[in-house]
């Protein structure tokens, strides 16, 4: 009897085998009531998650988008103006030659602020739409289950993390570019005002190369910091040390001192000195901007935690 029963069991087990496409898929039941019930339960759970999700995610994301956009706008604007100032034809044609340092400063502040406000508002809308999409049903039960497997909080975390390196890198890069533009504008303004009458337009063009070399060094530093943040590495922590801020301020003082000295003595500094001053200026701005941006980022991370 046992043998007969076992044989019957074998027969019964071989009866109605499951189709291969179903056993090899993720779900065994093909969109039946069970899957729909799971989907509805998960949807309810995700809606609760969204309702109780801290607003910090939305705020931080919007501000990071704003910072990234403002930084990018600063970089693009500053580089464009730098090239326009360095090129005699362009500067004459578009009236850039008449721009003075205070005009550049005002233009930079206004455009950066406008970009920041506009981009933050766009960031908020983008966040809202992504959250809405995270709990939206497409109609197909399994597609819904796949999408709902990731909750709104996970989506929000991913958004905030993805924008993080861009916000940091563009912000620091923007500060460096605006500082370089400001310094170069002062120099160009002096040259064109006739204070250093022996400087020709060719010298202006030559000095643009000096500024570009310093900016390239700055870009390399910024890329390194952005990459470290994208990899969630702790190697950028030393940039938030107080000594970095102190060092940056000292470098700013030294650069300004030598710059003022050159202006007062009405003497053209050598190319090596000019290059050294440009690099020191970029490093100083990098140190101060990194300290400020990463300190602010640390505060945001605490809010998110």
């Amino acid at each position, binding site marked *: 009897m*046992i043998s007969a029963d*076992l044989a019957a069991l074998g027969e019964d087990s071989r009866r109605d085998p499951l189709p291969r496409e179903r*056993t*090899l898929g993720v779900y065994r039941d093909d969109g039946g009531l069970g899957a729909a019930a799971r989907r509805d339960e998960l949807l309810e759970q995700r809606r609760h998650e969204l309702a109780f999700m801290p607003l910090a995610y939305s705020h931080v994301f919007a501000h990071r988008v704003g910072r990234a956009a403002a930084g990018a706008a600063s970089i693009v604007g500053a580089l464009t103006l730098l090239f326009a100032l360095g090129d005699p034809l362009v500067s004459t044609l578009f009236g850039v030659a008449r721009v003075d340092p205070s005009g550049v400063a005002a233009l930079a502040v206004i455009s950066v602020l406008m970009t920041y406000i506009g981009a933050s508002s766009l960031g908020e809308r983008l966040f809202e739409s992504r959250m809405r999409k995270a709990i939206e049903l497409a109609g197909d039960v399994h597609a819904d289950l796949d999408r709902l497997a990731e909750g709104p909080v996970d989506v929000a975390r991913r958004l905030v993390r993805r924008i993080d390196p861009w916000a940091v890198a563009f912000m620091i890069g923007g500060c460096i570019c605006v500082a370089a533009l400001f310094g170069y504008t002062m120099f160009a303004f002096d040259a064109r005002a006739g204070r250093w009458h022996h400087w020709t337009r060719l010298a202006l063009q030559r000095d643009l190369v000096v500024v570009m070399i310093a900016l390239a060094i700055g870009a390399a530093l910024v890329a390194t910091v952005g990459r470290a943040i994208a990899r969630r590495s702790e190697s950028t922590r030393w940039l938030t040390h107080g000594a970095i801020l102190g060092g940056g301020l000292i470098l700013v003082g030294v650069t300004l001192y030598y710059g003022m000295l050159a202006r007062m003595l009405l003497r053209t500094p050598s190319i090596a000195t000019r290059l050294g001053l440009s690099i020191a200026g970029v490093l100083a701005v990098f140190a101060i901007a990194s300290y400020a941006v990463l300190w602010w980022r640390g505060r945001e991370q605490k809010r998110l935690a």
Partner: protein
Amino acid sequence: MQQERLGRLIEPIHDAALAFARCLCRSRADGDDLFQESLVRALDKLETLRDDNAFRHWLYRVIVSVHRNRCRRSFWSRLVPLGDREVAGEDFSRGVDRARAALATLPPEQRETIVLFEIEGWQIDEIAALHGVSASAVKSRLVRGRDRLRTFYTKQLGIGDVTPILVPGDSP
């Protein structure tokens, strides 16, 4: 890519492996779940399989491993009068139900051995290779499993006339 490979390899043994999983469990639905879980594990580990010719044994080993994990997971079910141990009140008029209930009383390794030998028709050395034990250990499991089955049939179901299952090489 691995899913395609799994689909290709499983084609000839799909139904037999599914039937094996169904025999190991208390119900067909549980067997389907076990098979599905085993396939997910197989897909996850498929890159560790170097020789495609060894796929059959490898998949059965995965099923056995998942089955044992599930048995271990539900240890608490032995403490309550539900599930595998429940006999009173069940309808045993069908041979299939009797066989399932009897197999459920066996420890996992004896259950697997009985199913592979009696139902799937595997040879002793194949089962020994699958479980990584000696042939005599497999025979011992068969004998002990058979004894337990007989005990279940006589004591729990009250069936006196039970033909013993014979292992090749044993004297009747």
